[in-house]
């Protein structure tokens, strides 16, 4: 059994910033456990620019952004293990991990940071009728194949879902010489960031079919065509609106799910609205000394916010080790009310400044965001694709136990 101060599960944007901050705060023995063959996580395949605009005030691509953290990990002498799969974590902070060099690894940590990120929804989660030919990929898989491994996945492409990765891949496919026939979106509004709709679809005149879905997949060995149809308000395909699109590839960009298999095994409480653990302003989960950050908590749209959440988790994990962790007796629970999908953190002390991340359910203009009856923030526009971040100052909240966050039209 190897003893460590802080064990970090996952070496992506969240895990690395947690590791760096834990080390800087004073934890001596920090260990990052990474399943992949290099540090960096998903950013290594995100070759588009737009990363770091907030955190570094620079316009970087994914590999550049994460390389800065990898460099700091090396400079601070933070230990990490690659190709290492964590199999089990127990509440007393024992870990079982495995790799092909060490075999089974048994570790005892004083604090743990969960930073496993998220996974894409696969075809199986969608129940689209039809055959099972080659040529159907999730957007992230296509991204990895194209931009890390160097394969163009197809020539005539249809994209289902208008999440950011799907939009970004639409542009990459066009740039690499493929034709994108259409992006098909179930909702009446796009799923991805506004700037991506403009720069990835409008720039290349790629049709965006809102309130449409795919009702059939055809092809024996390779995909031959898909059938699209318009949907009604209940998302049911409308008979008579079907159209066939000839294509050799279908890309799925239909949502991301926080990867919480380990967290569930551990028995920490999971918020069904985010798909991630309940956390407080220190990013501590329902289990003491166990922290979580980044996309394992809720799916972020900007990596800059992932980095910041990792820093909070890492700093507080180190404070647990150093016995300087501030624990408040009372805490206020935040819950999602009208037009709010979720609020993170779900618990705050109200005694310290804290950033709230709020995901709305539906787009709306000229809104007021109410936190209980006490606070109102005005926003000109809110969209499900763009997380709202509000900063609460210390002692701004008088309420002691429970607050509901709602978004409503300004009167």
């Amino acid at each position, binding site marked *: 059994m190897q003893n460590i101060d802080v064990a970090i599960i996952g070496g992506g944007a969240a895990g690395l910033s947690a590791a760096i901050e834990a080390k800087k705060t004073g934890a001596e023995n920090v260990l990052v456990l990474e399943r992949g063959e290099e540090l960096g996580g998903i950013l*290594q395949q995100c*070759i*588009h*620019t*737009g990363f770091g605009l907030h955190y570094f005030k620079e*316009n*970087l*691509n*994914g*590999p*550049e952004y994460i*390389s800065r953290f990898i460099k700091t990990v090396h400079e601070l002498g933070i230990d990490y293990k690659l190709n290492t799969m964590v199999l089990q974590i127990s509440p007393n902070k024992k870990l079982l991990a495995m790799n092909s060099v060490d075999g089974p690894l048994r570790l005892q940590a004083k604090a743990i940071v969960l930073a496993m990120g998220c996974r894409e929804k696969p075809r199986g989660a969608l129940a689209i009728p039809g055959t099972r030919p080659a040529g159907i990929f999730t957007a992230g898989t296509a991204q990895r194949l*194209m*931009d*890390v*491994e*160097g394969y163009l996945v197809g020539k005539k492409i249809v994209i289902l879902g208008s999440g950011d990765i799907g939009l970004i891949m639409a542009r*990459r496919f066009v*740039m*690499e*010489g493929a034709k994108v026939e259409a992006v098909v979106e179930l909702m009446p509004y796009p799923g991805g960031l*506004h*700037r991506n*709709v*403009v*720069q990835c679809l*409008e*720039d290349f005149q790629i049709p965006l079919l809102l309130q449409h879905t795919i009702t059939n997949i055809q092809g024996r060995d390779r995909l031959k065509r898909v059938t699209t149809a318009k949907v009604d308000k209940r998302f049911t395909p409308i008979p008579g609106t079907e159209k066939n699109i000839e294509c050799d590839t279908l890309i799925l960009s239909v949502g991301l799910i926080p990867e919480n298999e380990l967290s569930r095994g551990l028995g920490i409480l999971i918020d069904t609205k985010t798909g991630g653990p309940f956390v407080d302003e220190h990013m501590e989960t329902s289990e003491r000394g166990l922290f979580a950050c980044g996309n394992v908590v809720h799916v972020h749209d900007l990596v800059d916010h992932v980095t910041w959440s990792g820093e909070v988790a890492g700093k507080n994990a180190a404070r647990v080790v150093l016995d300087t962790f501030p624990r408040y007796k009372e805490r206020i629970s935040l819950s999602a009310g009208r037009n709010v999908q979720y609020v993170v953190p779900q618990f705050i002390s109200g005694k310290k400044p804290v950033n709230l991340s709020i995901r709305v359910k539906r787009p709306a203009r000229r809104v007021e965001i109410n936190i209980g009856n006490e606070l109102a923030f005005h926003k*000109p*526009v809110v*969209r499900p694709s*763009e997380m709202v971040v509000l900063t609460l100052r210390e002692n701004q909240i008088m309420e002691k136990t429970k607050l509901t966050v709602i978004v409503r039209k300004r009167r």
Partner: protein
Amino acid sequence: MNREITCIICPIGCRATVVLRGENIVSINNLECPRGKPYIINEIKAPVRDFFSIVKIEGASIPVLPIRTTGPIPKEKMLDCMVELAKIVVKAPIKIGNIIVENFCNLGVDVISTKDLDAIQ
């Protein structure tokens, strides 16, 4: 002639209607704030975009190297630039920030590496 352009300066995403006479802008309508105007004018006169892609690399653990240009390039040159980029093969080792092509396609920007890749045996 009218052109519709979505402003991307802030999350509101105003759909601006631009009235054009030939190449001259007669008016820009439907913008909710003054910040969008310079962006819309640029989009009409000389739209630019970030440029990034991959190039072939030999002797590294992966076959392609992610690259970007040091600044944005004219939007209409993007596909031509991709054709030029396809001709380039680099050799490992390479470091982040290494210049791969200086003054790419005479656009006044360099193509740089965005990843460290060691040479493998």
